[in-house]
């Protein structure tokens, strides 16, 4: 199942946020979206998943979601969005209960996703007992449980410290290497973008337009922290963005 964005424009009142976005999201690839703060990255992600409607243009789903997929477009949020009153297990079962999955089948899915995210020992812990990295792993497990066709990740590692971020990037890469998934990954961190993205979409500052789409050809599993070619690409992205990032930083917020 591919996703296609055609001629997306979006404004809040008279405030133009996104302009003329055309983008293809092919199956099995991770697309990273980077851009200066306030350029509409997260808005774009909300449009893709149907949490917001574009002012004009369309988000198209090409083909059907694969069989067994419970929630084709599934988000992973920056602030994890776990229910604090439910255990790790309960948070995962929350998104399955509504699909009529009960009993042994429910437990089988939960055990499977917990094993894949190395959380089996923490099934009965409450979110407040977990570190930030663990909370995000729970959110990833929850997303995997509904067998998404496309994962929509909104700065999933931005609330974590840099060491945890490294560990979680490795986890994401190994998850992808075992079963390639489709993902749109919004981030402001260029290092994350070059580590995880098959292609990187650079947005301009507001109103966000696509400035360039940078391909990273090296296979995900061969990318390492501190690779020189990745750093060269990261520098290239930064050179593209630096002036706009500075201008965006100096802008008054109009919200």
């Amino acid at each position, binding site marked *: 199942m591919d996703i296609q964005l055609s001629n997306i424009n979006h404004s809040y009142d008279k405030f133009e946020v996104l302009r003329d976005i055309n983008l293809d999201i092919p199956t099995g690839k991770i697309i990273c979206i980077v851009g200066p703060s306030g350029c509409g990255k997260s808005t774009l992600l909300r449009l893709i998943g149907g949490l917001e409607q574009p002012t004009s243009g369309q988000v198209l789903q090409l083909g059907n979601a694969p069989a067994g997929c419970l929630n084709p477009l599934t988000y992973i949020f920056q602030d994890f969005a776990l229910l604090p*009153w*439910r255990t790790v297990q309960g948070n995962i079962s929350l998104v399955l209960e*509504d699909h009529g999955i009960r009993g042994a089948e429910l437990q089988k899915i939960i055990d499977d996703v917990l094993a894949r995210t190395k959380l089996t020992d923490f099934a009965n812990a409450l979110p407040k007992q977990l570190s930030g990295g663990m909370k995000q792993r729970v959110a990833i497990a*929850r997303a995997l449980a*509904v067998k998404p066709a496309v994962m929509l990740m909104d700065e999933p590692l931005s609330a974590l410290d840099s060491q945890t971020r490294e560990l979680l990037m490795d986890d994401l890469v190994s998850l992808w290497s075992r079963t390639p998934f489709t993902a749109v990954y919004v981030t402001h961190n260029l290092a994350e973008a070059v580590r995880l993205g098959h292609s990187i979409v650079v947005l301009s500052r507001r109103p966000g337009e696509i400035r360039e789409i940078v391909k990273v050809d090296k296979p995900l599993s061969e990318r390492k922290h501190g690779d020189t070619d990745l750093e060269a690409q990261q520098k290239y992205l930064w050179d593209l963005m630096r002036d706009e990032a500075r201008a965006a930083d100096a802008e008054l917020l109009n919200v």
Partner: protein
Amino acid sequence: MSDLKNTRPVKFRGGGFAPTSRRWVGFVVFAVLIALAEIGTQTGFITALTLPKPSDVLQTFIDLYNSGLLFTHAVPSLTRLAVGSAMGISVGIMVGVMIGLFSYVRAGLVPLVAAIFPIPKIALLPLFVIWFGIDEGSKYALIALGTFTPTVVATYGAVDNVDRTLIRMGQSFGLSWMSIVRKIVLPGAMPGILSGLRISLAIGIILLVAAEMLGAEHGIGAYILEAGSLYDLERLFAGVVMLSVLGVVVSMAIGVVERRVLRWRS
């Protein structure tokens, strides 16, 4: 910097502003106040007309218990409080959740609730007597109305404060509207609803006594009124003690519920 004569530890300034559990202090305050009253009345420093001796009040209480009158008065009062506040609180939570969820209900009912809230409910008792009869009905209605308004206000405030990102999360996973309300909104609003209950139930106790004073054969309020009109201070205080104990018990009961239901909040 290396002036050794002037070496001293950095002064600690980070104390206070962090409430911790000190259970026994409450009892000590009670005990000291009662002991002072007892000493004062025994020595004659406080005259018998100003304040009854705490020991006499205790004796009255024991007599009340032995004669069985304690239950004659306490049982109807507790029933009224339980029935009336159960009605008021359950309807109040329902209406509060609706106000929190639907803009039209909010626009329509918030002004109405604001209009009802400040009415001294006791002023409506004659009306309730006509509507619901002189018996239990009017007392239930009065307590129900009294607990209803604060519950509504607390509940919709609590629903407003539920983390919106959790609701978005529910929507993004395709949860049904009912599931979002039942599994995300209600548990998220629970802390606010429970702290509203403390206020509602205290108001319920006040109205219970007022209603019983205006027309009841048995009940703590009727007992206090009777003692008061005879200037029987021992019995009056025995009645007041019953009310205080009731208040403390209710507050403790909510505390227990909070600890059980809100265990996730550390």
